[in-house]
């Protein structure tokens, strides 16, 4: 499109221009338009490529690993990076490169699954609060206020203390503490559309509430939910890493970026063995950076009110 029309960069010609050209009306589908707008955003596109590469590496971890992640090489203990061990080995002689890609598997999949769970819980409570209003609304929103007042890491640590650490527990704890943002957003969405004509029309036609939710509310809230999921992938990866860094998240020997970074809490490792903590740390930052760019890009691309 860009190649054919030199003017296309500035503004799309008004629809009447197409009409006068002999009724060649081609309406761009919303998905197509969103994709076009998304790929015009360079940081978002690069982030998508980086994240896709990392996801691919995580998926293919057993194929691109050079050694099993828990194999102990007694000849190379605490060895700096060499051709044999690209990122060196840790104090037990395990290959850091293999552990980094396997750790990525843990961190990324946890981020994705927990973010989906977060969005589901948040959407559910948001819909509940928005539709039932009254006492239910007050209770839910006050709970949201309280949970957002207490620093998240404190509540996470308290829950870990009661339930115990571990990957499976994190899958419950992290969504349980991360749904408030989605809930607020969803409630706002419901309140803003519930008096809109098409919802009123649906109600006049006697449609049950669940049908209005599924057919009218949810499709309209798709964009913010998608952006919300993306952003919470980032915050969940950070929470996991933070808990694991304190030794209360994913437990060794299962590698995760957070518990690999924990090595840096030992002063001589921090000073002498850069290869142990720098790669997982950089990967955490790059992932979160890319997820944030991706979220920004998605929001700009999907929101029809944004003019790009």
């Amino acid at each position, binding site marked *: 499109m860009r190649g054919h029309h030199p003017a296309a960069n500035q503004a799309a010609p008004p629809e009447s221009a197409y009409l006068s050209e002999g009724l060649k009306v081609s309406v761009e589908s919303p998905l197509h338009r969103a994709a076009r707008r998304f790929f015009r955003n360079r940081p978002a596109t690069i982030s998508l490529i980086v994240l896709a590469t990392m996801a691919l590496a995580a998926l293919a971890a057993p194929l691109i690993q050079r050694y099993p992640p828990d194999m102990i090489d007694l000849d190379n203990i605490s060895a700096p990076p060499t051709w044999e061990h690209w990122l060196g080995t840790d104090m037990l002689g395990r290959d850091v490169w293999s552990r980094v890609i396997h750790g990525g598997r843990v961190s990324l999949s946890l981020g994705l699954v927990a973010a989906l769970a977060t969005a589901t819980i948040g959407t559910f409570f948001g819909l509940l609060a928005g539709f039932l209003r009254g006492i239910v609304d007050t209770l839910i929103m006050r709970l949201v206020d*309280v949970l957002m*007042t207490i620093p998240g890491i*404190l509540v996470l*640590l308290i829950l870990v203390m*009661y339930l115990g650490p571990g990957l499976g527990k994190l899958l419950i704890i992290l969504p349980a503490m991360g749904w408030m943002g989605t809930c607020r957003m969803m409630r706002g969405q419901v309140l803003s559309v519930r008096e809109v004509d098409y919802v009123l029309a649906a109600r006049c036609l006697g449609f049950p509430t669940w049908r209005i939710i599924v057919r009218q509310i949810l499709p309209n809230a798709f964009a913010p939910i998608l952006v919300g999921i993306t952003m919470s992938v980032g915050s969940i990866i950070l929470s996991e890493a933070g808990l694991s860094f304190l030794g209360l998240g994913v437990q060794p020997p299962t590698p995760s970026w957070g518990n690999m*970074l924990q090595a840096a809490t030992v002063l001589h490792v*921090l*000073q002498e063995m850069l290869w142990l903590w720098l790669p997982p740390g950089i990967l955490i*930052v790059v992932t979160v950076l890319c997820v*944030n760019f991706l979220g920004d890009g998605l929001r700009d691309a999907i929101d029809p009110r944004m003019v790009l």
Partner: protein
Amino acid sequence: MGRYFLRRLLIYIPVGLLVTLLVFTLADLAPGDPADWLYSPELNMTYEEIQAIKESMGLNQSPVVRYVQWLRQTAQGNLGYRMKNGDPVGPLIATRLKRTLVLGGVATAFGIIVGLGLGIYTALHQYSWFDHLSGVLAFLGISMPAFFVGVLGLYIFGLKLQWFPIGGITTPGGDPDDLRDFLYHLILPAALLSSNHVAGYFRYMRMSMLEVLHADYLTTARAKGMRERIVILRHALRNALLPVVTVIGASIPGLFGGAVFIETIFSWPGMGMLFIDGVNARDYPLIMGVTLVMTSVILLANLLTDIAYSLVDPRIRLETRSN
């Protein structure tokens, strides 16, 4: 002003009560008996005495009554005793809270000075190389979690360049009341703790300032022949600061969250480290005490933010009055 303050207070009271309810529920779920918390194990009481106390405390009562009892104890400053050694939790928290408030306060001040300063400067010099550089650094600052910033900062400034000490609040063996030594130990962790906030404040300030700079009343002010400095400082900045005030207030919980990591990395014996100690030792009274105090501080900070906002923006006050 008084009415506005009262209205805000009325919003925070139920939130504060809900927080205490949450803490109480968690405490009630914890193994052991609240009687074990509220009376120091060092008193060496007999079984009968403890039973009598439980009776007098109403532990055979319904949860509602017990909640009120607990609330009364807490309001009187009795946060219970540590399970580890029977030390009272209240005074311990008081010492630790001071250190965390110093750390957090300096970090916030640093964030405000650097973040707002940079934001104003780059907004006035939009699209300069400095603007671009700051933008990239700010995005990095926002995406860097406190634990990685802390580790990286400790490595670069503490271990490699050796500009700052690597931990603690004073030099071991030195005079513990030496203020200069204390400040020397404070600078690095406070600066690292503020990195997230510098970046956040900067982005907000720049955006807010850019929005204001296009306003018509600035053109009017210039047309009246006002000096550029007055136009920027008095007309633009005052309005641009409004939304930033709320952002600063909203970032306080995050500050405490970051303090947990920074204090752990720099062995800064404040609330964050105390909390981690409590979690590792499963010292329930300690954990509940810390949670309660930290949340109260945050609620107080929120209230102060609201007041500050109403002070800089008269519209908020007037709106309340007209309602």
